[in-house]
């Protein structure tokens, strides 16, 4: 009997292959959509992580309190040692020391007199050591507009708009006027190696990027750093993991007594990012839910129509003396098989396409021109665990429910009525 039913299922294209194709397409779209939304939301988070927050960040407790003011006087000491123990303690994360500072940039004329001046926000990052990934992380080579990347000590990058305003060009010397770690005023000369533009207004106003060793020299802060940013090796922010690492670190290092103790904060624990992380989780859930709901309706309908179309066959089988319950159950089993096969195929395809988009990305820089928030210019899907099961909701559950519903007609109708429809 089962063999007989399977033969029927296999041979009747409109009963097997067609519904499987429909389910596969629906499931593929659902998985892809989910991965895409997760990726889009995640990319914005990644962008902020790379520029400002890290996936996790270590600061002194006091610095953490006043993070917006970039207080170099509250920087961490003995950074080398701290990074070594971070590397040992959390090998799944990559660490990078940075110094963020405020100051004035002064462009002198040929006689050393001030020609122009402007307030700047500085980033001291590891630009020069060969194992550093900071250049890639901030996408500096792509952002370069004039000149070249710094290749030795004393060279900096200046945001393009700022350079225009100050009327300086690559090769010119500028002076940083700032305050040192212990509060005294310092002046330090840099050579402008190149200018950069990220296409993001807040980053393009008055940014200077210098090698962290130069900044340590300029601000008299040896082996110190304002912040140590941690980036997970997976390349993606994982809030649960970040909170776990931060919690673990703080248990080991943080006391209530010393405000210079290092404290670790996850991205979601910094400023508004917590809200954004929560919001993006809710959004990706909403969008996915709506999409799953829509796909469910489609597949439900497909299941329903598939069932209705078979009233004729059902009538014959009932006339031959097959029990209603048996006919009904065999239809449900068929839809379970179709739903399963379609969901498995669709999930595989969806994850494959998502993987392509995750790996190669879709460039949307054209659409993002002029945006003032930090939005990524490449959209990448992101495959996360739900992608492996989310497609089964429309693929399996809706298909089977649709068939169940259409099958109820078998029970409701008089057997003779099924025949009337059959004869027509």
């Amino acid at each position, binding site marked *: *009997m089962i063999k007989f039913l399977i033969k029927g299922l296999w041979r*009747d294209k409109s009963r097997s292959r067609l519904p499987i194709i429909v389910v596969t397409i629906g499931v593929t779209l659902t998985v892809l959509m989910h991965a895409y939304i997760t990726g889009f939301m995640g990319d914005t988070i990644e962008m902020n992580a790379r520029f400002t927050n890290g996936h996790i960040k270590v600061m002194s407790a006091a610095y953490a309190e006043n993070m917006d003011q970039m207080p170099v006087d509250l920087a961490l000491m003995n950074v080398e040692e701290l990074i070594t123990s971070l590397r040992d303690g959390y090998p799944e994360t990559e660490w990078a020391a940075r110094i963020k500072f405020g100051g004035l940039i002064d462009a002198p004329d040929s006689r050393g007199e001030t020609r122009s001046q402007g307030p700047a926000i500085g980033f001291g990052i590891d630009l020069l050591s060969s194992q550093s990934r900071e250049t890639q992380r901030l996408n500096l080579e792509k952002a370069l507009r004039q000149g070249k990347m710094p290749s030795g000590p004393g060279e900096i990058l200046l945001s393009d708009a700022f350079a225009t305003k100050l009327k300086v060009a690559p090769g010119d010397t500028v002076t940083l006027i700032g305050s040192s770690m212990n509060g005294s005023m310092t002046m330090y000369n840099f050579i402008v190696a190149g200018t950069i533009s990220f296409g993001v207004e807040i980053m393009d106003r008055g940014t200077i990027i210098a090698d962290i060793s130069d900044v340590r020299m300029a601000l008299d802060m040896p082996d110190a750093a304002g912040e140590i940013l941690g980036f997970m090796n997976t390349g993606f922010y994982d809030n649960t993991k970040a909170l776990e690492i931060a919690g673990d670190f703080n248990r080991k290092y943080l006391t209530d007594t010393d405000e210079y103790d290092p404290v670790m904060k996850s991205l979601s624990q910094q400023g508004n990012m917590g809200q954004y992380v929560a919001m993006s989780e809710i959004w990706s859930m909403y969008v996915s839910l709506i999409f799953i709901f829509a796909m469910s309706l489609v597949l439900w309908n497909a299941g329903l129509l598939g069932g209705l179309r078979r009233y004729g066959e059902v009538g014959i089988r009932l*006339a*031959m*003396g097959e*029990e209603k319950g048996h006919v009904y159950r065999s239809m449900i089993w068929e839809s379970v098989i179709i739903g399963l096969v379609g969901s498995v195929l669709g999930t595989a395809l969806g994850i494959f396409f998502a993987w392509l988009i995750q790996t190669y990305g879709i460039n949307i820089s054209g659409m993002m021109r002029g945006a003032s928030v930090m939005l990524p210019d490449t959209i990448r899907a992101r495959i996360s665990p739900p992608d492996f099961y989310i497609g089964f909701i429309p693929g399996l559950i809706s298909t089977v429910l649709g068939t169940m519903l259409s099958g109820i007609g078998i029970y409701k109708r*008089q*057997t003779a009525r099924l*025949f009337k429809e059959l004869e027509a």
Partner: protein
Amino acid sequence: MENKSIISISRLIKRFPMGKDEFTALRDISLTFTEGEFAGLIGPSGSGKTTLLNIIGSLDVPTEGEALVLGRSIGKLTTREAARLRKENIGFIFQSYNLLAVHTVYENVEFPLLLLNIPSAGRHKMVMDALEWVGLTDKVRSKPPQLSGGQCQRVAIARAMVKKPSLVLADEPTANLDADNSHHILQTMETLNRELKTTFIFATHDDKVISYLHRKIFLLDGRVDKDEIIRSNKR
């Protein structure tokens, strides 16, 4: 030779709901059929032939009165019991053949045996015998869409007969067939009736069918108008 009664219908009434009203399709039918009959319900369109045949076949139930088929009262059967009655004792033949299109001739004929859980060894012989009766042993692997109408109806007869049921109900079996094919299947059924003692009840208004019947029950407006028994059939 006095045969035993296999169907006994008394004071049967069938009404269908029609919006707020009811439509009476069968009014006070009383009939008895004995084993081995070759009988026909004859009458114009709408006279209630199919309705009566469906009730005898336990596909529908009487509104009032009783229909006893092989000792079971149709109105009182659960759907499960009705299915069992059909599965074990009744074969159906329809005007539009109603074969399963994706299954081969062999599989279509085999289907009723699968429902009866007959082991495969016995099944093969029964299917081949049935196809032999209708002269289609060379078409076992064909599928219904590849067959002519006459061949399809012969497959349907084989399917109805394969389990050697006590009763075969045939609703307008020749309506879609030409004269040659009609005579061919009628002769086949007549032979099976004679050799296997299967009771045949037709619903028809086709003269070709009527000419084969041993008993003609004329229905008019849901009533039995005339009930003729023809002992010797002369065509």
